[in-house]
């Protein structure tokens, strides 16, 4: 389980928040409270679309005080290969889904003196949670939220209700754009900025921050298009005489274990070196995701760390 601990949830409620965004309320099947998380965290949702397994990360908007539910918000993505369309068109109230434990790659910096939150479109999901956490902690913050038009405003209405004049709204259809050069210069020293939204918007805000002389350590962003997992490939274990498939939602080590071979490991995170395995041949490119092998070793293609690394290609033959 390289993806972490899994939690079974039931879709307790579906709300059409805007023309293109649905919000899902997820309740734990076990009845045990869902884990507490820090704002900015996401869960990976596993969906089973007629045997086709999809795993997408979605930011957590909120958690009920008593842990009885989480909320996520999902944009219906044009040209989708499946995940968001599946959630919009196939998932009904009462359906079951599998999620991972929360993971936070976009945390609030607690030493910050003030926090400027900037969201565009669906990028509002983690920002929504961060604003709530800052409000609860009585920390200084402000929110800038850009949306297409007033019909996109489900999140906007709630943000204004909860955060009052700390929120500034910008509407594309009214030619309102977030002006970095107007926001940044007047912030106190030690302010941190967090931006989540479309690629172009993130790039513009970050560039504006650097231009205004902000240290890069104070500029934070999350992009929703991070690559996840990898393509499936086949692995042949020469000594054991076994061939197995490494699915896209599985690590190489997990596939080897599933095939019944007791391969070495310790950390399962690419750090300890225990799972180092000799590559006999590789029909494709080795994708080294570990911190253990040196750059030269990685380039030589002679070894692979099975816990985190994989093959982009057809077949990998290992000395196992």
């Amino acid at each position, binding site marked *: 389980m390289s993806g*972490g601990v899994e939690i079974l949830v039931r879709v307790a409620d579906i709300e059409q928040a805007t023309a293109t965004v649905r919000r899902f309320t997820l309740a734990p099947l076990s009845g045990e409270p869902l884990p507490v998380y820090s704002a900015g965290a996401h869960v990976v949702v596993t969906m089973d679309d007629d045997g086709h397994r999809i795993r997408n990360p979605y930011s957590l908007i909120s958690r009920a005080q008593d842990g009885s539910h989480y909320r996520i918000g999902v944009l219906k993505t044009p040209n989708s290969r499946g995940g968001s369309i599946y959630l919009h068109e196939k998932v009904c109230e009462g359906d079951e889904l599998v999620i991972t434990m929360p993971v936070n790659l976009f945390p609030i910096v607690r030493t910050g003196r003030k926090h400027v939150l900037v969201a565009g479109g669906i990028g509002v999901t983690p920002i929504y949670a961060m604003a709530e956490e800052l409000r609860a902690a009585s920390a200084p913050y402000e929110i800038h939220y850009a949306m297409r038009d007033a019909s996109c405003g489900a999140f906007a209405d709630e943000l204004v209700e909860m955060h009052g004049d700390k929120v500034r709204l910008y509407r594309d259809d009214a030619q309102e754009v977030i002006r970095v050069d107007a926001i940044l210069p007047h912030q106190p020293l030690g302010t941190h900025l967090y931006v989540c939204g479309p690629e172009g918007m993130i790039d513009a805000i970050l560039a504006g921050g650097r231009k205004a002389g902000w240290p890069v350590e104070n500029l934070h962003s999350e992009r929703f298009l991070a690559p996840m997992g990898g393509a499936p490939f086949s692995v042949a274990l020469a000594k054991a005489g076994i061939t197995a498939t490494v699915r896209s939602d599985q690590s190489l080590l997990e596939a080897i274990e599933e095939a019944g071979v007791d391969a070495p490991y310790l950390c399962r995170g690419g750090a300890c070196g225990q799972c180092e395995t000799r590559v006999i041949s590789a029909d494709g490119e080795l994708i080294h995701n570990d911190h*253990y092998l040196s750059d030269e070793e990685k380039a030589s293609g002679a070894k692979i760390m099975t816990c985190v690394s994989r093959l982009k290609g057809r077949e990998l033959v290992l000395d196992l």
Partner: protein
Amino acid sequence: MGIQFKQETFRDDYTFSNSPEAIRRFPFPFDRDEYMYSVNIEQHMPGPPKSYVEFPIDIDEHYVSEMRDRAIVLKEDPLRCQSLPHMLPAEWDLVELLMDSMSKHYPEHFQLTKDGDRWHWVNQPLGIDQTFTFGDTATLPCPPMEYITRQCQGDFALLDQRQDNLWMDAGIVTTQADWSLDFDIGMNFMEWHGPVPIAHDIGVFDRALKFLLNLQQGRPVRRLNWTMTINPRLDTSPENYHKWGQEKATVTPENVGDKVHLRVELQALWRLPRSNAIVFSIRAYLISMEELVTIPKWGRRFPRILKSLPEPIANYKGLSRYREMTIDWLSKYDDGQPTSPGFFPD
């Protein structure tokens, strides 16, 4: 049935000792006859019944006496417990982790009931009965980290994660192997590891840090570290070096078995939910040479470890002065037979 807590001291008359059961469950840290620094991190999964890793937080027969020793240290030196203001959410995370774990795994000694944010905590061995509001510091007699770690064996450091690094921004450290929280507070992972020899050059800390930055909620990890201590003293701090440093000179060939102790730290790391901080627990276990050799495999292996230990590591661990004497004393337990792989007794 429960644990029979011993009354013993870790200073002055040093009455500490291990029962035969405590010896068998001792976290012997060598799975082979040689030792070198490595990224020896593994998942903190439940181990065999009665072992030191049966539960995530290990409470043993020394609990009550260790907590008394901690109280003495804190009374003499309040700076052993420090927390920067932004670490308060992490402090509460730690309260939850420890109370949940202790009450779940040792229900005959600790009980926790929750009614929303109203929590009721009962610690029978220490005679504590406390009702408080989770998240409201004013409802506890002292700040949350200090409150709960005065009731849990092991030192604790709370690490804030930012700028792709970990920062030691809070902790309670009264049973340490010669390092100081007051000195390290506010430092980052590379800075506080500065004094360690060799490990930086072989990339141990780079890899360990990258691994820890990705540590996930619900998937704690652990490692073992070790050193040696003269007399069963928990507080071997730089602050009190004047008290214990000179005890190294009291080792003689006759008293090695009784005075020289192997000191092993079970270090576990959890990602904390509210704060996204990491807690690092350092749970120290002591065993005298006399006790160690009651396990024949350990008696054979440990002198071999000491003989082959690289000089810089021996110096760093501060054991050069009595290393030879200890090897001599132990050698009568090493018959030269091969040892089986792995940590556990045969």
